[in-house]
């Protein structure tokens, strides 16, 4: 496959860029934050996104989607990264949808996928239990009792937890913390007795929550996939997520680079445009180079997902590179903007805060460097 966007994808990109710049620019996120909006996203925006097909990019037409694949998802995520648009897109249309698609029974697929694609139902995944990603470190317990399961434990850093209709919970049905074996997935509905959701206000002003399960009892129908064998399908869905997060980091990096370059072209200091200073020029040019290289890694990884092969190696490569480049880009952007970049009134601060959250989600630079090395056989 040529490492370029085809015509259809190019059109999607233009339409997404236009859509988010108009409908959900940074000012929308600022308003949600300052209003302490309870939902933390614009329902109107989410409906419009669904109408555009953005909630059904990964689903086939039969499943109610538009079948644009991971590349399409990456294109939209990149635009959302540029504009810091808040929505349940990632949690529901990417990770939730991937899990149902890959692990769900026919009944589950038919019930949930079209509802995700239409934006009616929001699904999210609750996986991590500490500040550090690690699916195999799951300790949240699901104990079988006749034909039901009882779940107890805690999850953190769950995107859109308090607005989700369904939470897919990774639980341990066998084995010990650290084992990849013995994990199972359960779909828990909002309002289920014993399910406690605490919204967490985080630096990026987006929707995050802690999820506590106290004797949550679910029937066997709530199981997604095969009991005790969730790890491979979970990791695959996480990889789709990681590739899309890399695309969001690409969008953030590209945007702060563009804004910084524009600032260098306009700002005067010592009586001259600061863009004439070679010290800054070389750093901007280096950053440009890094962003372009990241763009290739992200596209390659998204293509690997769509090609249907195991994308793990490409996903870890892309996420590691994305974390590194986004950290450099946001730090350089703040420094080159000087004092004004430090003010809340200016928007650069929103980007650095969002970048670190996305860097952390589903594994940061070190996590994916380590995974890349293991997957490469050393």
């Amino acid at each position, binding site marked *: 496959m040529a490492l370029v966007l085809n015509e259809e994808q190019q059109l999607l990109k233009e339409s997404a860029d236009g859509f988010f710049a108009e409908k959900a620019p940074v000012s929308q996120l600022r308003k949600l934050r300052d209003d302490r909006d309870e939902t933390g996203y614009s329902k109107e925006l989410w409906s419009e996104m669904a109408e555009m097909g953005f909630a059904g990019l990964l689903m086939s037409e039969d499943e109610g989607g538009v079948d644009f694949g991971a590349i399409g998802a990456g294109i939209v995520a990149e635009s959302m990264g540029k504009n810091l648009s808040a929505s349940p897109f990632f949690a529901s249309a990417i990770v939730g949808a991937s899990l149902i698609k890959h692990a769900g029974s026919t009944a589950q697929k038919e019930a949930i996928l079209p509802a995700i694609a239409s934006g009616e139902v929001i699904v999210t995944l609750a996986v991590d239990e500490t*500040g550090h990603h690690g699916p195999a470190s799951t300790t949240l317990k699901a104990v079988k009792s006749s034909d039901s399961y009882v779940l107890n434990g805690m999850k953190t850093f769950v995107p859109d937890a308090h607005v989700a209709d369904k939470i897919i919970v990774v639980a341990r049905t066998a084995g010990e913390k650290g084992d990849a074996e013995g994990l199972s997935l359960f779909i828990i509905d909002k309002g289920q007795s014993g399910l406690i959701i605490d919204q967490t206000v*985080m*630096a990026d002003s987006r929707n995050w929550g802690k999820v506590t399960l106290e004797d949550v009892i679910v029937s066997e129908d709530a199981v997604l996939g095969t009991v005790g064998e969730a790890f491979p399908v979970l990791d695959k869905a996480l990889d789709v997520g990681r590739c899309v997060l890399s695309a969001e980091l690409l969008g953030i990096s590209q945007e702060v680079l563009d804004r910084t370059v524009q600032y260098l072209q306009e700002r005067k*200091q010592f009586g001259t445009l600061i863009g004439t200073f070679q010290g800054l020029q070389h750093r901007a040019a280096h950053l440009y180079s890094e962003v372009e290289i990241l763009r290739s890694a992200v596209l390659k990884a998204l293509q690997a997902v769509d090609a249907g092969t195991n994308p793990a190696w490409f996903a870890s490569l892309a996420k590691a590179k994305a974390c590194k480049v986004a950290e450099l880009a946001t730090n350089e952007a703040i*420094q080159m903007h000087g004092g004004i970049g430090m003010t809340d009134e200016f928007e650069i601060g929103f980007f650095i805060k969002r970048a670190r959250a996305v860097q952390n989600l589903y594994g940061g630079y*070190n996590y994916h460097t380590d995974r890349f090395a293991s997957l490469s056989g050393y």
Partner: protein
Amino acid sequence: MSDLDTFRQETRAWLEDNCPQAMRKPMKGDTDFCWGGRNYVFQSDDQKVWLDRMAARGWTVPSWPKEYGGGGLSKEEAKILAAEMRRIGARPPLLSFGIWMLGPALLEFGTHEQKLHYLPPIARGEIRWCQGYSEPNAGSDLASLATKGEDKGDHFLVNGQKVWTSYADQADWIFCLVRTEPEASKHEGISFLLFDMETEGVSTKPIKLISGNSPFCETFFDNVKVPKENIVGERGKGWTIAKYLLTHERAMIGDQGVPTPLNVIAKEKLGLADGQMEDKALRTDVARHEIDAAAFMFTMERATDEAKAGASLGAFSSMLKYAGTEINKDRHEMILKVMGSDALEWEGQFSNNGEVARHWLRTKANSIEGGTSEVMLNIISKRILNLPS
């Protein structure tokens, strides 16, 4: 027993008797600092008692001369006092820009009358000062100052705007760079003026930062009358004082004191397995950071010792400012890596209202304020390496 030993014994005894127990606990955040000033509200009686007792001995500014409210201590004595305070964990009784910045400037450039007038209230924490240097179009480039002071016989009429004035909304007086000689060349023609923030025509507006805090203001001067005797040093030579203070400030910003070692934070958060951090990449990065940080601390130590031995710091302070702030930024990026997503919490008890994330964001300004890293590198390049311009 030597005089210094006697001094140590007496100091230890006095501190033991006079430092309230509550003032021996670590400070938790900015609100525990005692900044003083006309409108300062003490956080506790102990805080006030501690300030008053120390100020009475001149120990808020131990090495300033006694006649100006200081303790008149020799370098050796001041070192002993600091060590004895550290020993019992005593908090500094007072922190202020008056102590750090204006005081040293007045001691170097002020007249005897000015010192007598301004220094004792600083030492007693009665007057809180802020610094008016930066302007919207003169950030790193102080020579482009546009705030002007028109000569009106017995006073200057000051008009203009400052930005990044720390806590200007809480300060009583300002020390301020003002262009008083419009015909002079860029660096000439600037004077160093002092005036009351309650003077008619002064207003302030806090700037909200990305950390969510507002330690800085925009400050506006609209026909502010400043008596001519409020000038420090020669008229039109304020640049010399500003440079002196910047050097001073740079050495200070570089020296952030000894923070909790990164590896301690990491061990607390992540624990050890077989005596080592389990995440090997993180372990390596922590060690690499700590090697750089320790080597930098040794460099601060060396600079201090060289200064004691009579060497002049000069542009070396620019290097310390550059390296120190870059290392501190790296330290906070490392803390984020050590703590993972927990570090990004912004509100709530658990994260002490997002202290980690807010502090991380605050450090991004380290390499901007007091001269950007780029300006420091320019200074090193020109003044130390003698590279051509």
